[in-house]
């Protein structure tokens, strides 16, 4: 971190920060301001990433625990008792805690890892350095965004250790199950903590999102028009727009749930007899919550997917040494996906008894979203066509991303069609579908991004060999785990079951469940290879020796190898061309940086 102390004076350096740490002369910032309460977008991005990695390990370990139960319902695993104590007495998971684990696995992976860990990391890292800004519009708000996320994380973590266990009503926490303490152990204090944690999470997400949007709209460097922005920035922009418009709706849904739980209102409750008595609630609608939840819940899927799409576009283009094909088509399809994302939420609710006519509308809108998605896939494929492809780890993960996005996206055509969903709803087909597309595929986009920008983050490379091992085990493992689940789902096997042995229709899938569990455990350990690679490379990885190791056109590679707060030492570079000029530069090079002026007679893209 040679340049860490150099804070360049520029018009837009950390205005709000001046009080604490904007000394003109100092050379070494205090540890606390540099690493903990940092307002440098690059440090905040690392904070999000490391927190995300920790959460991902916890969340994935949970899935190993409940997969052991699903794969081997008759066996005991004493090691589980070491981790889970009373919840796994004698090495056998209790049903209550099985459901708690399933719930926490979903919440953690969807929100803490693939929303905060993904957008938080890459929006923070890339937005300023790819558009040519010294920092975010409000570095202070940016710092708050992380610390709200941190607080939310702490509360969620605490909820794992309370006597009645964490929330256990599924990551969607549908009332009345989640609203009534009598309905399940996890609906007690665990649920209160869950709601509190999620409310703080929404705050964090909004602070971050507003910041990303205003930075992208207002702080682009000279010459960086909107249509010269890399697709990562476009994708992160729409991700932030989705979050800002839909998280408040989720928040309102949570507020009503908090009222129903604690203050005797009946927004979601009606005509319930539970725990031996009839409750006084009348007139609420349990389905209302689902509308509010999925109004975020569906855009959330795209909040998770879009950053991966943007990064895959960038990585595929860079490592194919070819411009992204159909830059404008890519932007238009992002706009299409963003708009449609708000109009398809009720496809999660086809079988709730809502009006079949309404269902028809949502079928139409849902399948429409396949069109922009298909356009993106074809553009990625054509980007690779006649390229000069370098198989380094980021590129591998980008290829894997496309493969998984196709596989998981196509099964969406089954589920989005209500007449098919009526049988597949809440079966393992759904589990397979969303794990491939917004689970593994989004993770592949994230890995592609981490391997690609690791040199920018830490001035060192991650180890390639470990990257290849990680890639192949994960790709093969992901297909081995989720491909068979489609069949189980078509056979009607319901999700979120603790044990299938009493069911004549489903018990013959026991062998395959065991197989899936074994592979899932292996894949979990393969992820630790990545974790080790990540942390070891931070300190011992091969050093980056040139400013632009990938031969990339975008602005982040014009900053010093270890950029300080403020990113560029001199003036912010000016931009003259679009971000994908991978062509002969006239001197034997195969790319032209965005900062290179157009040659005489050269037309801009």
């Amino acid at each position, binding site marked *: 971190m040679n340049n860490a102390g150099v804070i360049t004076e520029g018009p837009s350096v950390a205005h709000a920060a001046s009080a604490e740490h904007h000394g003109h002369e100092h050379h070494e910032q205090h540890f606390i301001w540099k690493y903990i309460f940092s307002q440098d977008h690059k440090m905040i991005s690392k904070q999000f990433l490391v927190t995300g990695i920790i959460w991902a390990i916890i969340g994935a370990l949970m899935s190993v625990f409940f997969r052991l139960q699903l794969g081997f319902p008759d066996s005991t695993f004493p090691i589980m008792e070491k981790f889970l104590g009373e919840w796994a007495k004698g090495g056998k998971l209790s049903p209550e805690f099985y459901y708690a684990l399933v719930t926490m696995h979903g919440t953690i992976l969807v929100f803490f890892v693939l929303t905060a860990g993904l957008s938080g990391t890459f929006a923070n890292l890339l937005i300023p350095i790819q558009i040519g800004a010294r920092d975010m519009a409000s570095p202070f708000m940016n710092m708050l965004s992380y610390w709200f996320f941190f607080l939310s994380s702490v509360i969620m973590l605490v909820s794992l250790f309370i006597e009645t266990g964490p929330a256990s009503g599924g990551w969607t926490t549908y009332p009345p199950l989640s609203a009534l303490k009598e309905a399940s152990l996890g609906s007690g204090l665990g649920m209160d903590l869950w709601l509190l944690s999620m409310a703080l999470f929404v705050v964090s997400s909004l602070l971050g999102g507003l910041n990303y949007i205003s930075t992208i709209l207002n702080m682009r460097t000279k010459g960086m028009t909107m249509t010269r922005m890399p697709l990562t920035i476009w994708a992160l922009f729409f991700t932030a727009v989705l979050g800002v418009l839909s998280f408040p709706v989720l928040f309102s849904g949570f507020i009503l749930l908090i009222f129903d739980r604690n203050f005797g209102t009946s927004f979601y409750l009606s*005509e319930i007899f539970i725990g031996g008595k009839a409750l006084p609630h009348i007139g609420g609608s349990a389905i209302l919550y689902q509308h509010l939840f999925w109004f975020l819940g569906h855009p959330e899927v795209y909040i998770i997917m879009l950053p991966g799409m943007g990064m895959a576009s960038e990585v595929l283009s860079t490592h194919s040494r070819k411009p992204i094909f159909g830059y404008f088509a890519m932007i238009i399809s992002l706009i299409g996906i963003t708009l449609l994302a708000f109009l398809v939420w009720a496809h999660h609710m086809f*079988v709730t008894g809502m009006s079949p006519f309404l269902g028809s509308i949502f079928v139409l809108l849902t399948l429409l979203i396949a069109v922009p998605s298909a356009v993106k896939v074809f553009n990625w494929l054509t980007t690779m066509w006649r390229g000069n492809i370098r198989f380094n780890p980021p590129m591998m993960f980008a290829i894997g991303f496309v493969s998984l996005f196709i596989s998981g996206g196509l099964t969406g055509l089954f589920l989005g069609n209500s007449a098919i969903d009526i049988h597949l709803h809440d079966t393992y087909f759904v589990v397979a579908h969303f794990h491939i597309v917004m689970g593994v595929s989004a993770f592949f986009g994230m890995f592609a991004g981490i391997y690609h920008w690791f040199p920018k983050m830490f001035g060192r490379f991650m180890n390639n060999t470990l990257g290849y091992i990680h890639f192949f085990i994960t790709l093969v493992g992901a297909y081995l785990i989720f491909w068979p689940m489609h069949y189980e789902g078509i056979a009607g096997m319901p999700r979120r079951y603790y044990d299938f042995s009493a069911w004549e229709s489903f018990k013959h899938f026991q062998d395959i469940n065991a197989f899936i569990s074994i592979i899932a455990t292996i894949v979990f350990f393969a992820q630790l290879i990545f974790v080790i690679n990540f942390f070891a490379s931070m300190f011992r990885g091969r050093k980056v020796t040139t400013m632009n190791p990938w031969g990339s056109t975008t602005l982040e590679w014009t900053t010093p190898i270890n950029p300080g707060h403020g990113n560029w030492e001199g003036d912010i570079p000016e931009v003259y061309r679009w971000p994908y000029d991978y062509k*002969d530069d006239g001197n034997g090079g195969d790319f032209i940086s965005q900062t290179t002026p157009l040659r005489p007679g050269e037309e801009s893209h």
Partner: protein
Amino acid sequence: MSGFITVLLVILVFVIIYQIGKASEYASAMRGQEVVKYKTNRVIGWLLVAFFFLGLYGIWKCDQYFKPMMLPVASCENGIKWDSMFNTTLVVTGIVFFATQAILFWFAFRYQTTEKSKSFYFAHSNKLELIWTTIPAIAMAILVAIGLRNWAAVTSPAPGDATVVEVVGKQFNWLIRYPGKDNELGKRDFRKINDANNVLGLDWSDPHNNDDIISQKGELHVVVGKPVKLIIGSRDVIHDVGLPHFRLKMDAVPGITTTMWFKPTITTDSMKRITGNPNFVYEISCDQMCGKGHYSMRGTIIVETQAEYDKWMSEQKSYYAENNAPATPAAPAAGAEAPKADSPKAVTMK
């Protein structure tokens, strides 16, 4: 102790893997980045091709493995339509799947970098974009059209001659109510529920309730060839009536009544012969997470002939008769709350 050794072994494996990674880095540094780059590239290219073909083989093997385990032929007309629509969608998506995956791995392999390869500058083509916007749009329109036709059929109002049966979910079993001789389900009120003698809260002031029959074992008897309409409700949290053999699902939501109808076409006995499984039974699964016993919330459907059904029905006692043995209707005064002090609490939170 064994746990300690396992942990040690795992750590050892990771150390070895890490060292391999490090060693390869030093090796490449010694032999020159460029040489290694092209060599690695070739190896990875072949590995991707191997992955693709092993994947195809795996898909085929997986299909062979699962074939005998899938659901038997659908037991109602709409279920058969479901199967055919599913297959149509499978063909459409299957073509796209194999084509795009093949292209992806082919391009990756074919256009990998070599010592003398160069990329071709090709940034956009409106013609191509138009083609691959239009074709998916047409394919989607076809799938939507088939889907909406089937959706209209499956959600259409039940035929007038349908038998009406009520299915109510509670943590963690299904309560099935038949209307009895008068063919009319009586009124019920959740405030009258009492686990001892009025599990559904039947309103005894409604005479239609007097002959209603309740199966607390979750046994739904239906007549083959005769449409049946389910009136679906829930006593506590959201459940879902899942009928995999009929390709149907409908949520059971407290405070809201939902419905679903189907016309069973194959009796349980015939299905035993078709599947060759003497234990075959149509099952009702709960498909909406409802608490710790969710996985055990099982009901059954017995599809039988009219004669068998009539015989079974004649053996059933009305719920009223079961709980108010010889005389005096114990109906609580109208408007009274459900009994409080003496209500059994054991049911929901065992």
